[in-house]
């Protein structure tokens, strides 16, 4: 009886977070623990899921073939997911049926972290628009290299406009088009907190959130800040 009480009290904490390593070489602990949690009916307790590429230097991203083959029908068991993080999501490869894979997270998801997502800006924004209750967003290492804008994409309209009133965290972010399209498609930005490092479009973001921004996290080591500081030092020397 005591053990059962302990179990009931601790289970939500123990199963709060789940990380799946998308390992290209062999089946691994991440998937195994995901499968075990599914078998035991514990996935409804998971509030935070991260699909991580492993090894991290691998060039292969998360594709429908790799993700769905192993986990697709089990993802729908994550009924209370609040935070989702995916490394190298090949958004373009999931189109146009991306809603079938991730749409069931839409009622509960509040935080989305995307590390180096691959696809056009419209496709990424369509993916973000799948979650109408999204508050916090963390796109990371989004470079404009390899960005392929497809002509037909301009007709791709996000299914919803998420509130996005929480944290915007951008680190080493140079994909300015994504921010511009986000402002256009979501009718502006309303983030209250921003955490910016190595971001190319700081001015654009600060202006877009001029009315709502309450907290700003900056770093004196910011690469763009350093460039300007060096310029200033150069001016002084002249």
């Amino acid at each position, binding site marked *: 009886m005591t053990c059962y009480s302990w179990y009931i009290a601790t289970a939500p*904490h*123990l*199963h*709060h*977070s*789940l*990380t799946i*390593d998308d390992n290209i070489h062999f089946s691994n*602990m*991440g998937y195994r*623990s995901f499968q075990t949690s599914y078998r035991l009916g514990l996935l409804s307790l998971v509030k*935070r*899921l*991260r699909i*991580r590429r*492993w090894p*991290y*230097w691998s060039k292969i991203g998360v594709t429908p073939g790799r993700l769905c083959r192993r986990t697709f029908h089990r993802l729908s068991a994550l009924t209370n997911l609040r*935070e*989702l*993080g995916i490394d190298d999501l090949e958004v373009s490869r999931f189109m146009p049926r991306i809603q079938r894979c991730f749409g069931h997270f839409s009622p509960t998801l509040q*935080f*989305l*972290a995307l*590390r180096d997502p691959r696809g056009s800006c419209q496709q990424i924004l369509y993916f973000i628009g799948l979650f109408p209750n999204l508050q916090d967003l*963390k796109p*990371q*290492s989004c470079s404009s290299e390899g960005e392929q804008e497809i002509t037909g994409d301009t007709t791709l309209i996000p299914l919803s406009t998420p509130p996005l009133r929480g944290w915007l*965290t951008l*680190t*080493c972010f140079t994909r300015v088009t994504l921010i511009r399209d986000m402002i256009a498609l979501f009718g502006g930005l309303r983030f209250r907190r921003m*955490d910016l*490092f190595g971001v190319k479009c*700081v*001015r654009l973001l*600060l*202006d877009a*959130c*001029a*009315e*709502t*921004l*309450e*907290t*700003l*996290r*900056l*770093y*004196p*080591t*910011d690469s*763009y*800040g*350093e460039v*300007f*500081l060096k*310029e*200033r030092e150069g*001016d002084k020397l002249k």
Partner: protein
Amino acid sequence: MVRCFSKREKGINSSEEFVANNRALLRDFNLSRNKSLRTLETTGKSIDDAKGTASDFLMTVLSSVTSPVPVDVVIIYQDIHLEIPFIYPPYNPIMPIYCYSLQTFLLYQQRLEVSHKVYSTRGFRLVLCADVCDRVVERAIQGLEDFVKVGKMEGGSSHFPYKPLIISERRLLCTRKYDNLPGVSGHWYGVPPSVL
């Protein structure tokens, strides 16, 4: 809680001078349009990494703030910067607080000196935030309080007209060794440690 902000004449002048000299930096980091800004945050680690440029950067950014509401400047300290070895077992909960190394203490003093310099630009409330795991919150808070006390005796934080506010941001410990926050991990290569 009493908020103590003062706009010293000297501070305003130096602020204007600084704005004139830092137009390039202000092209990006100009906060004059952000009327509801209340908090400017940075990390202790990034202040250390930036060395001499940290105060210049913060002074320039802070000098552009025109928000009528008082601004808090928050310096975030993470576990590793507070010398809390939570990752490396065995964790010793009775390890005394005062055993911080001289190096940590000196770094802490440097960060406070940056804050003193920045304070001359615009009055603000200094907040020290311990961003640590749940189980070491009390210890981290105690450590920061000790630093403030010792710093004051050494003449450091005595330049501030008030005691820095010390707060904590609680974080749950990961339940499995490979769990971590989405978007936060040592494997996120290319991201400098001062951001993680």
